[in-house]
């Protein structure tokens, strides 16, 4: 049974007509063409599809569209637009300090897990701008990286946390 549901995605109001039980990820990727949210396991246990719902990290592969009704969704495409950085990366959208830090640390290989990890880290840094390494590891433990870039990713998140601390301080 399809319905028209209104979402606030990356600061814009978007109406979507779909079955309200549709996993949010399919709506983001296929209806709104926001391909940066990656499908991993479909069960919410690998972190690839992490987006922010009202600022909190959730897994969009097992969150129904109806759960986002009237709420604010932030995807990787909307992260850089938060006004925290005017830097541009690769000639594309303004980069969030986390995204810049991942490039600076060359943190990634195949990159499939990265957008989910960046969103998970963004959720953490909103709650806790200066997390310890143990806190980062614990918060990100749901996220899997099969290429084994964990060490670099941890460095990137610490770097972003420091950059953001300096800017706000």
């Amino acid at each position: 049974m399809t319905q028209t549901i209104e979402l606030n995605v990356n600061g814009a109001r978007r109406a979507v007509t779909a079955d309200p039980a549709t996993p949010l990820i399919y709506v983001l990727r296929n209806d709104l063409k926001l391909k940066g949210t990656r499908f991993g396991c479909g069960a919410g246990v690998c972190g690839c599809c992490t987006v922010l719902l009202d600022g909190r990290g959730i897994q969009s592969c097992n969150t129904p569209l109806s759960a986002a009704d009237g709420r604010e969704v932030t995807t990787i495409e909307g992260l850089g637009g938060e006004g925290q950085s005017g830097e541009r990366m690769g000639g594309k959208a303004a980069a969030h300090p986390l995204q810049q830090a991942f490039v600076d640390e060359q943190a990634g290989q195949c990159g499939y897990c990265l957008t989910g990890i960046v969103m998970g880290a963004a959720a953490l840094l909103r709650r806790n701008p200066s997390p310890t390494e143990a806190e980062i590891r614990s918060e990100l433990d749901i996220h899997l990286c099969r290429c084994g870039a964990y060490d670099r990713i941890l460095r990137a998140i610490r770097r972003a946390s420091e950059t953001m601390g300096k800017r706000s301080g």
Partner: protein
Amino acid sequence: MTSEPLPPSLARNRRLDRWVEIRTDGVVEVRTGKVEIGQGIVSALAQIAAEELDVDYTRIRMIPADTGRSPNEGVTAGSRSTMDGGGALRQACAEVRDAFLQAAARRLDAGIDELFVRDGTIHRKASNESATYWELSAEVDLARDADGRAAPKRADQLTLVGKPLPRLDLPDKVTGAGVYVHDLELPGMLHGRVVRPPSYGAVLKAFDGTRIETMPGVRAVVRDGRFLGVVAAREEQAVAAAAALARCAAWQEAADLPDVDALPTFLRSRPSQVKVLSEKGVPQDKGAHAVSASYSRPFLAHASIGPACAVARVQAGAIEVWCQSQSIHPTRLDIAKTLGVAPDTITVRHVQGAGCYGHNAADDAALDAVLLARAVQGHPVRLQWSHEDELAWSPFGPAMLVAMNGTVDDAGRIVNWRHELWSNPHIARPGLQESPSLLAAWHLGQPFAQPPGIDSLPGIQPTSERNAVPIYDFANQRVVLNALDRLPVRTGTLRAIGGFLNTFAIECFMDELAHAAGIEPVELRLKHLSDARAIAVIEAARERSGLASRSRHDGSGRDGSRGMGLGFARYSNEAAYAAVVAEVEAGETIRVVRVVAAVDCGRTINPNGVANQVEGGIVQTVSWVLKEQVRFDRTRITTRTWDDYPILRFSEAPPVEVSIIDRPDQPSLGVGEAVAGPVAAAIANAVFDAIGVRVRDLPLTRERLLAAIDDT
């Protein structure tokens, strides 16, 4: 001028315009047959091209491989891309540069040695005359064959190679650009899903899919033998229809799988052909210290983080495929064979997928997409596997067994070395055998037989026996392969292939011999090595890890919980050298707390890229060693979710330190698989160092550790 023999990949793809196009707008297009699977190869190749052409790295545009235009470089595998693809591109670019120098010399009426190139502009020394590649591109004809007459740069002329340039692909990957095949969006595109049988040999006894055809959005239900699939307008509709379709099928299954908990016994029981890989001297059994031990590994999954995906369009007899295959040309051959069409009616284009560490489901997905797209002519179909099928139906790295016997004499010389290996052929990639090596081809109503697999191909080392012949200098040795037929579990190549278990066995056994003879294990290695590069990496890892400064490393100095161990190999005895020291905390469970590696891969193209590959190889191997094994009952693969197949997480990942011994005057050597075997042995040796217990069957689980403790 003399001409050198061309690098093999260039000899097979001689036309220069197949590799490089100099555009009038200042962009340099570079084509390669090698594909990006997360290893950073495309950036490394761009760096090589920029170096040889003398243009800025940012001018290089790497064109994704397709079967229409790109050089046919076979498979991207075996840590050979920098060696082979890089070597060919390097020579091709040197010839292109030379062609432009000749053209500039004509235009400027200058001698070649009066000219130099800076970022694509050819300057005449001691004058302000110049000409650019972009101006000259109309008059330089690259539609000619490489002839080997222009020489690539010498080590002392390099300006970009060896520098840690940033990867080209990373900005798009962290900003969420649509870089993966999963992200393709074509006009009229529909979504497909396949429903696999519940087990390898399951027979479809009854099927009625008529009620699926009326489900929301369903455009086609496909049944061909036991190949079942659906095509729908929306992705979630395809997922729902596939779930319903699965309930429409009744299967008959057979209990034809081995006992997953007794794989060494199973492997020994299989019929085999004995192949002697090395025999020299007369093994002496009368030395003072004789040891024997067996080592095994289970079936290992690629466990890609994202499921396989492909898009296909079938229209008026032409077939287009976009897929994450590592072997677009050979895969095209097997798709053609399966469909009974000519290969040139099919175009296969590479688009990146989630990380790939060998032969996974990428090629299977390509055929699946074509089979579904045939049912909706003209519409592209985006086919994605489920995560569960990705784990259960991809080829696994095969289970293997090694039995070692050795003797050390009183002088600390190893006088007897016997290595006996049990393995099936690892290669099951498409395009190499009589029958297609694509999953769906075996399930069709007119099925093709699953091919037997291949152990050896021209130009590459046999797979199962990699690293079986030791790099150490032993006067008396015998190395034997018991070559098994195809196993009842689907297998294919996985990172480091046979080299992983062979090195694990050799490097654990060196420690076991050393302990039996009361010799420091690293010293025992050095005593039997004459290769200076091997010695250099071992000494570097020993120094940097702090292993060298420890007073004892023979198992007797253990403090009951913390230990260090070393493993070493030169991957396949011809690629990179790697020595690894692992530090562990061992009790009832094992925690790897730190890993230090030293590698020598000859000329380093990009030190950051090498370090990234080595770090990733270390972490993946720690995961294999501590956690991973494919599970099955006697009928079905039961590894279907991350709960069934846990891999290493952030909270468990050790800090890794990599040092590179650069040798700019030596050929570049593949590094992607170099550390797997050494890491595994280093961990097992460190566990013994910590608690005096030796676990020889992987993974090193809590159960195995407790059982080994009980045995001591």
